[in-house]
């Protein structure tokens, strides 16, 4: 088994696991760390103040080198360089690996599949099945549609050309000129691709196989996968891979987990022990697993999400009391459902009435409808609601009472002034990067008034950097990240006291924060590492025994067990080891195993009983190295019969019978085995 690590950010997990020659891609998220290098672009029909920003001047430009004087796509704002073009993305695939060879794609949640359309676009021959839960599929599809429609709006606003990136002369001179102040984006500049299309999304999603939690999926005859709830969001899961599943369709054989020959690989991503609205985190089957690949932990060191939540309500209350509006940039699914219900409850408590929560996104209505149809993926408490016919979420009620207003649009016109929003209001919209989507307009509108406020509840971006292009701003600004994922202190408890994996695989960034333990072998990775996972000794192979006759096991009370000799054929058929007992009685009898020591006196009596008299018994003065001094008394003995017709030498671990007369030999054998040494 090998693990190829494709990402340098543990919160952007992407791996290829190879088992028995099969390649399994674990997650394929869309990197968005470079988005802050772009300038925000307002929607069509709005004033675009960024279009008039000074263009970047190439200092190395002269008449001979044919370089342009200035570059349209690069602008300067507050002395800082920004890219002025529609958003483009890069992906984590590398040329070192032929992705068309991927057999299986396993997805943890709707955040970790957003780059898949690129993969299927780029590798025409890729024919991998994507396994994911239903919520991951439905929300993932919507989130892809959202990106497509936002970027489409942008490209309506500006036309650009890519010369600056692809002309090596120009790009080199820009890099030269920037020296220390290079943009993050420069390192991926040539890999950037314009956003995928709806067709790409649909093509990619045609490879989807929807699975349920704890469904056992036979990927290949000896590899079985199951999605286990991770508690983070609707349908989020950790993947459990059982390797060496020894079964076929006709007979499934399972033994107690401690003695099974399964190798268990767990891929853990975005998990939480915090109970929100989704099915809770389950890790019972991870205990003592062979490998645990751990990713996507909480960014913040031991910060309690509930503290920030209390803070958040206080800030919102202040702003609203100040007759301002609150802007909360956020993702169109996930935390937002918690926010709606949490805030409504809070407003009821403090008796703040007629608050309007706006949810602006092209997929707002669809996402609310989908979340309400996912009654099998919510906590037991919410399930109870759906059993009695009420949707698991309160969106519909909130919409009916005008507490929640959805605007399913990908843009806001300038004409739609803030006055159109009924006050007091809280507006949820995206994109998180503040570079595209309705949020761009809203910040431009709201930033002028100091009574308004913007609250960052997500921690993917530095809010200072995100707001930079909008400066100067008057509105209040708060950073109250709510990250429910496991933090290090929780993970350490979980690892050392509960799961106790044999091998733990983490990004090297995590090494310092993970408490070491002798029993856990820790492997760390960096980007593009190809780790060979330490092999696990197999103690047993599962097989099945087909016995036609009764076996007569011998009870051994001291060890509290029974043993029996088996004499048969061993076949491997359809990954199951089959032992078929021989039906030939003769050959079975011939399968005696002898153990223990010979009682010489008894043996002599037995010999005489069978009519063998006149024995000469001689003690042999051999010193047996294997025996201690006390046992030396029971020395080797040589017995001769009828002047050498038979000679028997009895030693502590071996008896030799020398005889050329078969009937005599048989007599001696029977005398030896009768009530004497142990036989199996």
């Amino acid at each position, binding site marked *: 088994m090998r693990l190829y690590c494709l990402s340098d950010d543990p919160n952007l997990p992407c791996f290829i696991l190879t088992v028995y020659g099969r390649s399994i891609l674990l997650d394929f998220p869309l990197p968005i760390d470079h988005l802050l290098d772009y300038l925000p672009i307002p929607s069509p029909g709005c004033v675009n103040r960024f279009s008039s920003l000074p263009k970047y001047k190439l200092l190395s430009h002269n008449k001979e080198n044919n370089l342009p004087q200035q570059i349209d796509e690069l602008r300067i704002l507050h002395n800082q360089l920004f890219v002025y073009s529609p958003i483009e993305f890069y992906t984590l695939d590398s040329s070192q690996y032929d992705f068309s060879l991927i057999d299986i794609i396993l997805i943890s949640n709707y955040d970790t599949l957003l780059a898949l359309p690129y993969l299927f676009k780029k590798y025409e021959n890729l024919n991998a099945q994507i396994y994911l839960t239903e919520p991951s599929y439905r929300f993932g599809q919507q989130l892809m549609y959202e990106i497509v429609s936002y970027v489409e709006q942008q490209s309506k606003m500006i036309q650009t050309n890519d010369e600056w990136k692809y002309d090596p002369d120009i790009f080199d001179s820009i890099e030269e000129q920037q020296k220390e102040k290079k943009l993050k984006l420069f390192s991926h500049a040539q890999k950037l691709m314009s956003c995928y299309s709806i067709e790409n999304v649909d093509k990619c999603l045609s490879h989807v196989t929807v699975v349920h939690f704890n469904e056992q999926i036979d990927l290949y005859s000896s590899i079985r996968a199951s999605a286990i709830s991770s508690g983070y969001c609707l349908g989020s899961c950790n993947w459990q891979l059982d390797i060496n599943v020894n079964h076929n369709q006709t007979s499934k054989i399972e033994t107690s987990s401690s003695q099974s020959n399964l190798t268990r690989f767990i891929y853990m991503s975005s998990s939480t022990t915090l109970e929100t609205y989704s099915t809770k985190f389950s890790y019972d089957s991870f205990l003592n697993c062979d490998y645990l690949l751990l990713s996507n932990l909480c960014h913040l060191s031991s910060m309690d999400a509930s503290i920030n939540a209390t803070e958040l309500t206080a800030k919102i209350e202040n702003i609203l009391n100040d007759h301002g509006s609150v802007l909360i940039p956020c993702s169109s699914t996930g935390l937002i459902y918690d926010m709606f219900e949490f805030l409504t409850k809070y407003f009821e408590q403090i008796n703040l009435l007629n608050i309007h929560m706006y949810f602006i996104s092209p997929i707002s209505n669809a996402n609310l409808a989908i979340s309400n149809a996912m009654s099998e993926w919510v906590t037991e408490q919410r399930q109870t609601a759906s059993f009695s016919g009420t949707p698991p979420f309160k969106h519909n009620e909130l919409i009916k009472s005008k507490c929640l207003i959805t605007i399913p649009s990908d843009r806001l016109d300038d004409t739609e002034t803030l006055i159109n929003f009924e006050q007091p209001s809280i507006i949820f919209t995206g994109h998180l990067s503040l570079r595209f989507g309705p949020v761009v307009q809203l910040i431009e509108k709201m930033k002028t008034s100091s009574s308004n406020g913007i609250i960052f509840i997500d921690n993917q971006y530095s809010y200072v950097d995100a707001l930079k292009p909008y400066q100067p701003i008057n509105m209040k600004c708060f950073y109250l990240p709510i990250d429910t994922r496991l933090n290090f202190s929780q993970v350490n408890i979980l690892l050392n006291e509960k799961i106790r994996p044999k091998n733990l695989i983490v990004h090297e960034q995590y090494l310092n924060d993970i408490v070491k333990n002798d029993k856990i072998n820790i492997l760390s990775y960096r980007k593009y590492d190809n780790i060979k996972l330490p092999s696990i000794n197999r103690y047993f192979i599962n097989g099945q025994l087909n016995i036609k006759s009764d076996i007569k096991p011998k009870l051994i009370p001291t060890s509290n067990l029974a043993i029996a000799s088996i004499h048969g054929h061993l076949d491997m058929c359809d990954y199951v080891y089959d032992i078929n007992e021989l039906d030939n009685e003769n050959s079975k009898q011939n*399968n005696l195993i002898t153990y223990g020591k010979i009682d010489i006196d008894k043996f002599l009596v037995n010999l005489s009983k069978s009519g063998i008299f006149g024995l000469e018994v001689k003690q042999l003065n051999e010193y047996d190295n294997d025996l201690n001094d006390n046992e030396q008394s029971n020395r080797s003995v040589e017995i001769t019969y009828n002047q050498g017709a038979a000679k028997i030498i009895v030693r502590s671990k071996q008896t030799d019978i020398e005889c050329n007369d078969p009937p005599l030999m048989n007599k001696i054998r029977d005398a030896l085995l009768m009530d004497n040494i142990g036989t199996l």
Partner: protein
Amino acid sequence: MSDIRILPLGAGQDVGRSCILITMGGKNIMLDCGLHMGFYDDRRFPDFSVICKDGPLTPYIHCVIISHFHLDHCGALPYMTEVVGYNGPLYMTYPTKAICPLLLEDFRKVTTDKTTQQGPYTSDDIKNCMKKVIPVSLGQTVKVDTDFEIKAYYAGHVLGAAMFHIRVGQQTLVYTGDFNTTADRHLGSAHIDRCRPDVLITESTYGSTVRDSRRARERDFMAKVVDCVRHGGKVLVPVFAVGRAQELCILLETYLERMNLNVPIYFASGLSEKVNTYYSLFVSWTNEKIQSTFHQKNIFDFKHIKPWDRSYVEQPGAMIVFASPGMLHAGYSLHLFKKWAPDEKNMIIIPGYCVANTVGSKLLLGQRRFLFDGKEIEAKMQVHYMSFSAHADAKGITQIIRQCQPSNVVLVHGEDLVMDFLRGRVQDELKIPCYKPANGETVTISTPHGVPVDIEPGLVQQLKEETADVCRSEKRSKQMRGTLIIKDGRLRLVRSSTAMNELGLVHHTVQFHSRFPSSINIRPITLVSLIQLLERELNSNENESKHRTILISDNLIHIDNQQLRVSIETNGDVDIAWTLNNELLGQRVSSHIKSFIDQHTSTANVIIISDSAASPDPM
């Protein structure tokens, strides 16, 4: 141990009151717990006294599985769990758990005597019963107990209907419940893996018919409805509140919109309109088309279909009414039937199966005069039967059998004659043994399976090495010797030496020797011919397994991996040593070697003479 026993308490050669007891791997499992619509006394419930004369069933039943929410599959459940008493695990799918209590409550209301408050069970019984239900999702493997798992497959009969795959130890069984193999307007088609169960228990309601296409049936239905309302008649469609009702509502809604027909449509059912919301809560159980569009438009928000009000019954003019229940045995449908039956302008379309003894079934059998509360009513209205039941027909049932490839088929939930037909087909065409137990009759099916055993890898490795260079047929016949250790219910097969070590036993070798003094000096060349002789002599018998003779060194031969050694000692003696268990081989080899040596002693002498005679000759 290696049997599966099947005992129908209901639905054996009958439709209604599905309740099948199975015993496999020491576990007793109850499949469905339904009631019979045709009876109004205790016969409507399965006879639980078969399981235990008196007292709760918990100790005797390890698990109850309900396939879907129809009363003939779950109607006796509150009676069983609360009145008779059962506290063990109880499984059904999410939608079944949601919708089941509605139908139970509806049934309770209809059957409870208004004055004495005597009924089969109470509202609280239903609530307490539902609390015991563990919901399962499609495809999810649920561990009931160690080595006891169940898994639900999509059955497509009604929302949440499932087929269950049950595995206890090595034995597997599939129970289909009711299923439909053709997708309709709101549900998908049944699907199962090629899971090769030991037994498939399948329903056989329409096991002898092959139905025409759904489209043709729909056209026919609409033509009749339109014809009746054009003439000012009232159309009564008795349906169960959930299931076919939604299917026909979607059909009417889409047709009416297209045909621009302005006739009021009502939906009369004891249940609130809430039922339709269940469809949007469990969208993943509907068909693919609805699933892919539900977030844009909710197909179950009917525009033209209005809830029924009692006062409408006297309203003149044409109308279309869906009324529950579907077999005309009680409730709205029976009430409307009584009112509208005498008018020949009206029409009744029965879209589903009617259990024997119900008004619906009598009507279909041709009975036209009915006695209600001492008053005779003659049914002059047009009566049509059009099967919209979401049951698989003969083709569908065969298809499911082909899909899952069982070793045995057991038929339930069908009429006796239908079962006979289907059984013939399964046995003749599919060549699978097929049973149709009657109620109270036990079928025992033997399931040959091995016992799971943990094999020491060394044992397999050893065998692999021993057979590394032999041909396939020899590999097959290669014997394996091992020791089976039975501890704490686990079987382990290990090498004898491993077993000895583990038990702290010291192996005592018993070795037999034959010794022949040989006056001649046996040269390597003679050893080679000795080996050839042994190979030939030992392997002369075709039926025995082959022996392998290997020359290890100048003075040592091994036969069968050291089980027998022939060594030539320095004084020229030949020592043949073999271990216990190889006496026959030892004695055979001894006798061969003895005669070989005897023979050689004579010929060797000759050679020596000729040698000495030749040597002086200088040539």
